[in-house]
């Protein structure tokens, strides 16, 4: 419980203005990018330094107060959703780039640094920071670390975890530790590897050492229009089978093209399946591969192929793609974004099955996906004002995730489990799998105060087919109950 006395202690460890307790201000923090889950936090702390974060977490530890770290709040799985009566540690004031080391290809940042600002800091020297979630102009590295954020270019360059060398972390006990190092293979367990993507359940990162990458000599972006998803999907398989590793392969269906056009006018061809292929590397290699991609597209009946002729044109193509989620508002009052992954080759059959499932409940599903790695973003479109439709839409979105698992895939490729997909975790993993993950959790956070009630499944929701129930450590400890 956040008593006035405890709040006074929190106020004492941060600079003036670093504690928010006014209800109207707290409401800013009640949800992240997944707005259908809301909980007003008991207080919000705005630390300016590692020491302040440490002091805050120590107080949380002393009084068993749950905490969640928050960057820009762009997460799509409710990862930054506060716990009832808990606090939010916002990193809005820890936004410094601490060190740029071009020779060693490292940048050290505070967690509140915006993703795109890392690239901006090294672009003049010809480098970039590769993970590029669509929200990169606003999302923060701290949040990227928590969710192990991906993006369109992780097909070639890997995920956030590929680019995190080490992190300074405040453990839930308040202890400060460096996990990993700026050099490779420091002796010990790969604690940095397990921390990245742990969704804030193992502690709070206060400093992150990132790896940056030399900008390729040439980047070429191609758009190809197809009459069917099946042909576009076959094209992707053929490109991969030819031994190429494009930096990105994205696909959009007609609903997404329509929405993107309405929102940002990327001038996409009007078609049933649009493929976006980006190649980068040494010029001669890229040009040779681009020829190959063109002929593979032709062989699969693409009726229009465009290669961006300028950087501006390329940016416009990407703008349309990255605006797709937000653009859904143009064609539907409400929508749910999902994040399933399937083996790439299962793409056509899964999409057909999704279409059948959608028709059965008379809803539309728009599909935009990272086709190269099989990461689907089905957008379930619905109208909240129609009684009962939201529940039907939610149920459909979860059944789509189950379908992904049934096909040998995953419930989340880059958005994280958070609050949203807790139940689906029980569908994907068995009880021993989850219990083993809990062992890691307990080693880091025995009291269960770091972003509790996320990631692991809890009670069964009505109508949902879930796996075995794993009690939350707080519940086991008698600290909390679920109803």
């Amino acid at each position, binding site marked *: 419980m956040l008593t006035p006395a405890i709040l006074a202690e929190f106020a004492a460890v941060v600079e003036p203005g670093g504690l928010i307790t006014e209800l109207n201000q707290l409401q800013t923090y009640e949800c992240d990018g997944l707005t259908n889950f809301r909980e007003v936090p008991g207080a919000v702390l705005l630390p300016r330094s590692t020491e302040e974060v440490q002091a805050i977490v120590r107080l949380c530890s002393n009084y068993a107060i749950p905490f969640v770290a928050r960057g820009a709040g762009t997460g799509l799985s409710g990862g930054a959703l506060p716990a009832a009566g808990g606090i939010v540690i916002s990193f809005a004031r820890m936004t410094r780039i601490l060190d740029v080391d071009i020779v060693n290809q490292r940048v050290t940042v505070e967690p509140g640094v915006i993703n795109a600002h890392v690239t901006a800091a090294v672009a003049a020297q010809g480098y970039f920071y590769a993970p590029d979630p669509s929200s990169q102009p606003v999302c923060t590295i701290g949040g990227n670390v928590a969710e192990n954020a991906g993006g369109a270019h992780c097909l070639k360059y890997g*995920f956030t975890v590929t680019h995190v060398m080490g992190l300074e972390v405040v453990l839930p006990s308040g202890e400060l530790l460096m996990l990993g190092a700026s050099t490779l293979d420091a002796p010990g367990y790969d604690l940095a*590897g397990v921390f990245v993507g742990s969704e804030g359940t193992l502690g709070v990162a206060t400093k992150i050492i990132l790896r940056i990458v030399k900008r390729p000599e040439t980047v070429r972006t191609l758009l190809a229009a197809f009459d069917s998803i099946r042909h576009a999907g076959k094209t992707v398989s053929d490109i991969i089978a030819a031994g190429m590793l494009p930096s990105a392969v994205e696909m959009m269906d007609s609903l997404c093209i329509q929405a993107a056009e309405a929102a940002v006018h990327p001038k996409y061809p009007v078609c049933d399946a649009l493929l976006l292929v980006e190649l980068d590397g*040494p010029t001669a290699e890229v040009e040779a591969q681009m020829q190959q991609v063109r002929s593979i597209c032709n062989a699969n009946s693409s009726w229009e192929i465009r290669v961006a002729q300028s950087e501006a044109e390329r940016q416009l193509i990407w703008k349309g793609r990255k605006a797709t989620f937000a653009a859904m508002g143009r064609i539907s009052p409400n929508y749910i974004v999902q994040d399933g992954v399937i083996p790439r080759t299962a793409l056509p059959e899964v999409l057909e099955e999704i279409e059948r499932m959608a028709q059965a409940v008379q809803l539309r599903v728009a599909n935009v996906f990272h086709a190269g790695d099989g990461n689907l973003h089905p957008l379930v479109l619905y109208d909240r004002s129609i009684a009962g439709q939201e529940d039907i839409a939610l149920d459909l979105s979860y059944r789509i995730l189950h379908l992904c698992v049934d096909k040998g895939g995953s419930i989340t490729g*880059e958005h994280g489990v958070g609050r949203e997909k807790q139940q689906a975790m029980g569908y994907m993993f068995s009880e021993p799998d989850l219990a083993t993950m809990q062992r890691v959790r307990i080693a880091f956070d025995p009291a269960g105060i770091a972003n509790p009630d996320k990631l692991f499944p809890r009670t069964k929701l009505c109508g949902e087919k879930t796996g075995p129930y794993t009690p939350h450590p707080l519940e086991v400890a008698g600290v909390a109950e679920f109803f």
Partner: protein
Amino acid sequence: MNFSPAHRAALAALVGEEFVRDDAVCVHVAPADVTQLAAILRYADAHALTVMPLGGGTKIGWGNPVQPALVLALHRMNAVREHAWQDMTCTVQAGCTWAAMQRALAQHGQCVALDALWPEQATVGGVIATNDSDVLRLKYGGLRDLIIGMTVVLADGTIAKSGGKVVKNVAGYDLHKLMTGAFGTLGVIAEVNFRLHPIERSLQTWSIKTSDAFALDKPLRALLDSQLAPVSAQVRCNPREAVLDVRLASLDEQKHSQQLALESIAGGISLALADDGVWGERQRLAGDGGVSDSERAVLKISLPHDELCNFLARVQHIPPEISAQAVAQSHGLLLLALVGTENALARILRTLRTEVTELGGSLFVQAMPAALRESIDAWGDAPATITLMCEIKKQFDPNRTLNPGRFVGGI
């Protein structure tokens, strides 16, 4: 060892008489599958029998010495279970040798893009447990970036899976990252899912050769700052010679421009086409080369890139009572092979460890004379994370059944 006939009989009942074998100091048990593996561990854990998992045994001397009651031999679990070549993933049992796996994958022109030591004997499980990697790491990353899922058996017999069979997946904790490089102290790896890459074609190697390793500092920096996108880059050195090897994916039409770019990078130092054999240097140095184990040490050193050539130049000037040869990958991992008397080796190991630590790197002793193991820890001082690591060990293996004492800080 506390090994009674009753234990032997119980294990024989689990796997069959023919798969339990005694030697002078311990008992070897070879499970056929993950269920038997779990049953053996459950039994051992309940009866306080310490266990050492064993693959090909190529790196069994790495880490601090362990005297297990039971050796868990994984050679029967050696199948490539699935090669979904169109999805570019595979599932392999831990006892499969690295080379056998790569041969199976090569049928579709694919590979796990990592070059392991002694691939004909080394197994998938052993390569992962020791976090081995070599020259392909520059382009493809290490095991952490190539493993997409794993089945692991904990000391109490719990069979747990993490990750999956898809390349992109953020569901749950990545237990497989925790198991990678854990030297079998948290669980026994049973099965692994890898992401695959096409086997590189049309590769070309160049060498920039000089006598002083420090002279290669500028070329190496220029190479890494270039847009040539090298597949591999390493510096080999001995007291007389230092060579920067560069390997590029090279189409015929690129060769000329690549040659020119490398000449400019070499900055006047001699540049020539080289044979692919140079990339076997690490394995050559890691082997005994006919030298007695009591006279050699092999170190894995990790350094910031910008310190590599400086450090190699320092290695070139190690006093002549020790013969020193090194190969450094441009990503910062360096293998140093030393030959000399026990005393001389002990002195240089201590000195180098201090120097490397001061440079912000780390030093792991892969091999050293048995007599030195008493006084020199293979890992060096326990890092600040030791309490947390011990807590993880306690959660995964509370009875210290698996490889006790082998890992960092006595874990």
